[in-house]
C-alpha cells in the first residue's frame, strides 16, 4: 500500500516497526512497536525489534534484557536464525555495558550459529564484534584475526560499508601494534571500500584512521589534510562520533607538530562531542590524548587528572588492561 506521495505505509505496526528498524529509523520504530497489540508484544520478533531499536537509542540495559528474552524464546521454538540474531543483540548490549566476558560469550555463540547456518553477513558482524571485544581487552593478534574473518565475509556478500568498517578497525589495531605499513595498507582498503559504499560517514571514519597512520609514519603535512577532510565529512554527514574521532586525531597530529595549544582545543572539542553522544570509549581515548599532551608540556597535575578520567572510562567498559595502563601513567611510568 502506498501513500499518495509514493511512500509505502503499513497498516500492520509490527511490519512497519520491522521496516523502520531495517531502515535505521529507530525512534519511528519505537513508535510503531508501541502500537502493536499487547498480546503480540510477548512474541520473540517484537522483543528482538524492540531490543534493536533500544540499543541504537542508547538504552543498553533494556535492549539487553529484551534481546535475551527473544533469544530464549527463539531457542525454545527451535528457530536458530532468530536465536542467532537475538544472541548478537544481547551480546551487543553486554558490550555497551562493559560486560566484555558476557559479550564475548554471546558473540561467540552467535558466530557459531551464523557459521552453522552459512549466514555470511552475520559471520561478518559477529567476527567484527569479537574483534572489538579483543581490541578493548588489548588482545591485538586475536582482534586482527577476527577482523580478517569479518572482512572476508563482508567482501563475500559485497557489503562495502561494513567491509570499510572492519578495515578501519584493522587499521587502528595494526597502528597500535606498531605495524605501520600494514596499517597504511588496511587504511587504503578501508578508503576503497568506503568509496564503493558511497557512504560519506564511513569515508570520514576511514580518512581519520588513515590520518593517524600517516602521522605515525611521520608525514604530518599530509596527516593534517587527511584529518581536516575527515572532520569536514563527519560534519557534513552529521556523524558526531566521527567528528569526535577526527578531532582526537587532529589533536594527536598537532601535538606531534609542536602545536600544544591547538591540540588541547581540539581534544576539548572532541571530549565535548563524545560526552554529548555518550560514547565512553571515545571519551577514554580523548582523555588519554589529553594526558599525553599535558605530560609533554609539563602540566603534570592536569595530566594526572586526564589519565584518571581515562582509567575510569576504560574501567566502565571492562577494558581493565587499558585502565591499568592509564593508572601507570598517572604514576609517571
Amino acid at each position, binding site marked *: 500500500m502506498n501513500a499518495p506521495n509514493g511512500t509505502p505505509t503499513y497498516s500492520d505496526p509490527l*511490519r512497519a516497526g*520491522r*521496516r523502520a528498524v*531495517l531502515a535505521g529509523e529507530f525512534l519511528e520504530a519505537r513508535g510503531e512497536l508501541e502500537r502493536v497489540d499487547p498480546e503480540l508484544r510477548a512474541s520473540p520478533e517484537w522483543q528482538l525489534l524492540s531490543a534493536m531499536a533500544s540499543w541504537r537509542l542508547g538504552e543498553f540495559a533494556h535492549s539487553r534484557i529484551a534481546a535475551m528474552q527473544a533469544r530464549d524464546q527463539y531457542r525454545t521454538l527451535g*528457530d*536458530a*536464525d532468530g536465536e542467532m540474531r537475538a544472541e548478537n543483540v544481547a551480546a551487543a548490549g553486554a558490550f555497551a555495558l562493559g560486560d566484555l566476558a558476557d559479550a*564475548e560469550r554471546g*558473540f*561467540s555463540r552467535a*558466530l*557459531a550459529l551464523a557459521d552453522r*547456518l*552459512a*549466514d555470511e*553477513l552475520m*559471520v561478518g558482524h559477529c567476527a567484527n564484534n*569479537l574483534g572489538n571485544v579483543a581490541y578493548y581487552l588489548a*588482545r591485538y*593478534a*586475536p582482534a*586482527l*584475526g577476527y577482523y*580478517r*574473518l569479518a572482512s*572476508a*565475509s563482508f*567482501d*563475500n*556478500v*559485497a*557489503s*562495502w*560499508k*561494513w567491509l570499510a568498517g572492519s578495515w578501519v578497525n584493522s587499521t587502528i589495531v595494526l597502528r597500535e601494534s606498531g*605495524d605501520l605499513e*600494514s596499517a*597504511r595498507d588496511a587504511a587504503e582498503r578501508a*578508503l576503497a571500500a568506503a*568509496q564503493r*559504499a*558511497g557512504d560519506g560517514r564511513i569515508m570520514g571514519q576511514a580518512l581519520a584512521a588513515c590520518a593517524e597512520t600517516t602521522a605515525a609514519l*611521520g*608525514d*604530518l*603535512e*599530509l596527516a593534517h*589534510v*587527511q584529518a581536516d*577532510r575527515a572532520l569536514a565529512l563527519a560534519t557534513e554527514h552529521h556523524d558526531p562520533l566521527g567528528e569526535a574521532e577526527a578531532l582526537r586525531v587532529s589533536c594527536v597530529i598537532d*601535538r*606531534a*607538530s*609542536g602545536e600544544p595549544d591547538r591540540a588541547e582545543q581540539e581534544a576539548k572539542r572532541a571530549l565535548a562531542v563524545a560526552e554529548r553522544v555518550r560514547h565512553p570509549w571515545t571519551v577514554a581515548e580523548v582523555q588519554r590524548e589529553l594526558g*599525553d*599532551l599535558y*605530560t*609533554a608540556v609539563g602540566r603534570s597535575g592536569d595530566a594526572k587528572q586526564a589519565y584518571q578520567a581515562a582509567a575510569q572510562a576504560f574501567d566502565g567498559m571492562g577494558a581493565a588492561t587499558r585502565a591499568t595502563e592509564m593508572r601507570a*601513567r598517572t604514576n609517571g*611510568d
Partner: protein
Amino acid sequence: MTLQLAVAVIELSESFRAAWDDLAAELDVERVTLAPDDAPPAGAVAVILAAGGEEDRALDLLPTIPAGGTPVLLVGAAASHRFGVQALKQGAADYFALPADLDMLRRTLRARVEAARERGRPSGPVAPPTDPFAELTGQSESLRSTLDAARRVLPHDQVTVLIHGETGTGKELLARALHEGGPRSGEPFVAVNCAAIPSELMESELFGHERGAFTDAHAAKPGLFEEAHRGTLFLDEIGHLPLPLQGKLLRALEDRRIRRVGGTRSREVDVRIVAASHVDLEAAVGRGEFRQDLFYRINVVSLVLPPLRERGDDIESLAEHFATTLAERYSLPVPPLDDTTRAALRGYTWPGNVRELRHAIERALLLSAPGTLEAQHLIPRPSASPKGTGPIPYPATLEEIQTAAVKAALVQHADNKSAAARQLGISRARLQRLLDRDDEEQP
C-alpha cells in the same frame, strides 16, 4: 531514488505457492512472477525457480533463464544430494528441497536482501562484463606479456598460479583479475598476507579452530579456507608459511579437505589457490626453507609482474590513472600532469613500485591546489620527524647521539618513558640512566 527490492518467482508448479508471498512479506520486498524467458526486474535479489514435482523440466530450463547476474535458486521437493549437484552444474546458485530447507532458503534470501539494503542497491543484474585486467594499467611489453599469459589461464579454474613480483607490483590485483575473469567469478575471493600473520596463529587463520583449541580460542572460528569455499584463496607472501604448515597446506590442496585446529571432523573445501611471493621460492627450496613438493604443487603456472622501473612509459599512464580515480574519491577536479611533474615521475626509481606511485599521487593531490598536481609534493621530504624533536647530531660522540635519540623518542611518545624505551629497544631503566647522565652534564 531507492530501488524497490524484489524476489522474482518462476512457477513451474503451484507447490508452496503460499510460501513465496509469506517470504516476500517477511523480508519486506516485492514478489514478482516471471515467465521462464523473462529477465528479472532491476531490484530482484534472487530468482526462485519453483519446481515442486517438475524438477527435470527445471534442470532443462536453468541454462536458458536470462537472469543476468541475479542468482537463480532452484526450489523443489526432491531431497537428493545428486539432484542438488545437477542443479548447480546447470547454473543454479543453490538448491533447496522444501519443506525441509525452508529456513535455509529464508536465511539465504534475507542475507541477500540485507546486503542489498546495506549497499543501497540490489545484488543484480550485474553490469556487463569488463576486462578483468583493466585495473592493471599499462602498455609496456613486460606487463603485456604477463597479462597475455594470464588471459590464457582464465578459463582453467583448477589451475594453481604462482605470481612473482616485488612488493607493490600489483600481485593481489592480478590474483583478483584471475578470479573475476574466470569461472569462479561471483564466488568468494579471499586474500591473506601470510607475512602479516604471526606464525603461531597461521594455522588457525587458514583452517579455523574450535573453541578451547588453544589459550586464546575463546570461540570457534571458521578459517579463511572455509570463507573461500567455491572461490579463490590468494596466499600472498606464501614463502612466510612456517614449514610444518606448508605440509598441512599441501595436504589440504591434495585432499580438498581441511580440519579446524582442535577439531575432529574434516570439512570439504573447493578452493582455487593463487599464491604470490616477492622472494625466489625455488632458491628457498634449495635452502630448505620451502617444501619442494608444495613448490611444484603451486607452481603450475608462473606469472611474473615486472617492477615499475622496468615499465617505461607505464609510470606516466599509471600516474594519470591514479590522479583520475583518486580525484574522484576526494571530489577534486582531475589534475593534468605538467612537464615538471612528468619529469619528476620519470626521474625516480620507485622502489615501492605501483603502490608507492599511488601513495605519491594521493599525497600530491591532497597537498596541491585543487586541479593541480605539484611535483614538490610527490615525494615526502625525508625530515619527517615531529617538530621540536631536533635532528640527531652527526658528527657527534656516541653519548650525544644516544641522548638525542632518547629525547626524540620521548617527544614522540609524549614523555611516556616505557613507550620510548620500547621503541629504542632498551629497558626503561637504561633509558632512565641515559637521561640521568644527561642531567648530570647540565650546567
